[in-house]
């Protein structure tokens, strides 16, 4: 293994926190979804690294499942966002909240 394991863990945790920051800080539903995706992929990266480190194939297999789930999740999420945009004309979560509180979703 050319790349040391702790580099992989460092990279994946950096990616995870960047995704977390994106999820918490952005005011755009698409960007929030993007942040969630980045966090998922950071996890997947850690799985791959661990599979290499302990020479076990299960880690790589799990990553395939994660990718599949991520793909479906993105498609469902984007579809919801498009639908929301059509209803309210905005992708800002606060606007959605205000609309919910007013009772006209």
């Amino acid at each position, binding site marked *: 293994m050319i790349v040391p394991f702790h580099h992989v863990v460092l990279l994946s945790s950096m990616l995870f926190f960047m995704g*977390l920051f994106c*999820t*918490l*800080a952005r005011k755009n539903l698409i960007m*929030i979804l993007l942040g969630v995706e980045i966090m998922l992929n950071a996890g997947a990266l850690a799985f791959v690294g661990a599979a290499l480190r302990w020479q076990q194939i299960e880690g790589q297999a799990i990553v395939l499942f994660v990718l599949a789930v991520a793909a479906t999740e993105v498609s469902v999420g984007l579809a919801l966002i498009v639908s929301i945009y059509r209803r309210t004309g905005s992708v800002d*979560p*606060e606007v959605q*909240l205000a609309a919910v*509180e007013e009772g006209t979703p």
Partner: protein
Amino acid sequence: MVSLFHMDASLAAVIVALLPPLAAFGIVMLATRPLPRLSAAISLGAAGLSLLAAVYLLWRHLGMQTPIIFQMTWLHPGTLQIPFGFLLDPTSLVMLTVVSSISFLVQVYSLGYMAGDPGFSRYFGCMSLFSWAMLTLCLSSSLIQIFIFWELVGLASYLLIGFWFEKFSASEAGKKAFVMTRLGDVAFLLGLVLIWLQMGSLDITNLNTPAVVTAYCSPSMITLTGLLIFGGIVGKSAQFPLMTWLPDAMEGPTPVSALLHSATMVAAGVYLFARLFGYFSLSPTLMTICLAIGTISMLLASTMAMVARDIKQVWAYSTISQLGFMLMGLGAGSFFAGVFHLVTHAGFKALLFLSAGVFIHHFDSNDMETIGRRGGRKLKSAMICMIVAAGALSGLPPLSGFFSKELILGRLLELDNPLWFLAGAAGAFLTAYYTFRLVCFIAFPKTIETTGTDAGSHGNHGSIGPLAMNGVLWILAGATAALGFIQEPILAFIKPALGAELSGSIGHHGWLPVAACLLAALAIGLAWFEFGRKRCRQIGFVERMPVLAKLFRERWYLDRCYRLMLDQLVYKGISGLFTWNDRKVIDGAVDGFGGAAVRLGGLIARLHTTMVQYRLMVMALVVVLLILTFGLGG
């Protein structure tokens, strides 16, 4: 100290003297309040019993040489012993007789005066409490016991001064009397504690033995403790500067004033001085201070009485000045002069108040000019009795006041500084003047109203009422006339128990009685000239000087001073600080807790209703913290 508590006749008599009033108080207050006649009968019976027992004790121990002590241990916390007992010596026996007879007579008088009052039963209950407390105080064997009953006397007088508590001024006067005497009592209690720390005992016989006292206390300590106890006396006997409660105490029913002024409340202070005379006389400084306080009080109160219009207030001021006179006699070193004046004063002051009560009851007014205008002189027996008592107060022979005043003046004359005697003579002059000013107002009215003179104030002139009131007046008038002639027997009775050095030599100056009579006659002549004769305008020489008259009428601005001190120091200073503390610190802290909880709740509630991102943020933070805790901590 021999601690005897076997039953003998004297002890039985003491118990008979003290127990019935207490029992009467309990029964009247608890059981018979709805039955006024029964309550009065119980209370009167108790007072009569204690009077009989007191007379029996006096008769049995006439000519006693050594005091008798009955004592037992009441409490002993730790190594201390707090005794409870009775000390029978000539002074206490004389005082016991005086107090029980005055309280009996006043209660008989009250049958007429208080008839028809809704609080009739309560009145008699409180009177019983009052006389019980004072009687036990007279016989107390230790200072701590005196202190307990001293406070009870204060409580009873508070209840009686504020008897008509529906009236705002009456309840205020009761409070004022209670609080102002309490100021002195704090000093008294401190003095007691100091003596106890020094000597380990508060027995009166111990305290009056110079050898015992000097063995334990330094001279300065004697002066200090004596001064503290004297503070209590100043409060109780309404001396300068704690004198202003007494005139206000006139809000109570008149018989209460009679009892309070003659035999119980204010007399307790002078009696305590007489009780500790041996102790006080160990410190010359202290005696001089007492003399000075007595002189100041006497002169101040006399000047106040010269401009007062309220008949009861004039007598109240005269009480202050006569008590000051007694303290002068005691402070000058003559035990007998002070005690004898206390006894005679009890008689004629009760008479003065009770006859004033007849006027007030009949005309429903306290103003002396109104009483005169409505025909006060037609009430023959009250008028004659009042003139007898006024003569005694002014020191006219052959009435009792003449003898006791002459004793005190004679003693003052023997002091090195002639100032004291001059002050005493001036006080005697002023006393005669203001006394007969009042008499002239009532006896020689300038205009006479004829309408409605027969309308009684309470509309209740039953058969027994006026009879009881007049009977009591005549008895007291007889006592006032006769008391002066038994001076020698009383002196012979009191002297052996004291020892020659304490009784104080009583000087006999041939010219003094004549001079005192002339002085009194001069004052009475002046009063008649200004208020009594046909074409006078009834304006005294004081009232011709507006500044002086205003000063006297405002009571030398003493009350204003107290008010100012109260406002500035107590209300603005101390209670202002506490109010601030209460508002800001305590209320602030409690409100702060409440507010913080509400705000925190609002914050948490926001988490639930607002954007998902905040919840996520908290979640992420918690996870990070958990990782840090468990990852780094172990």
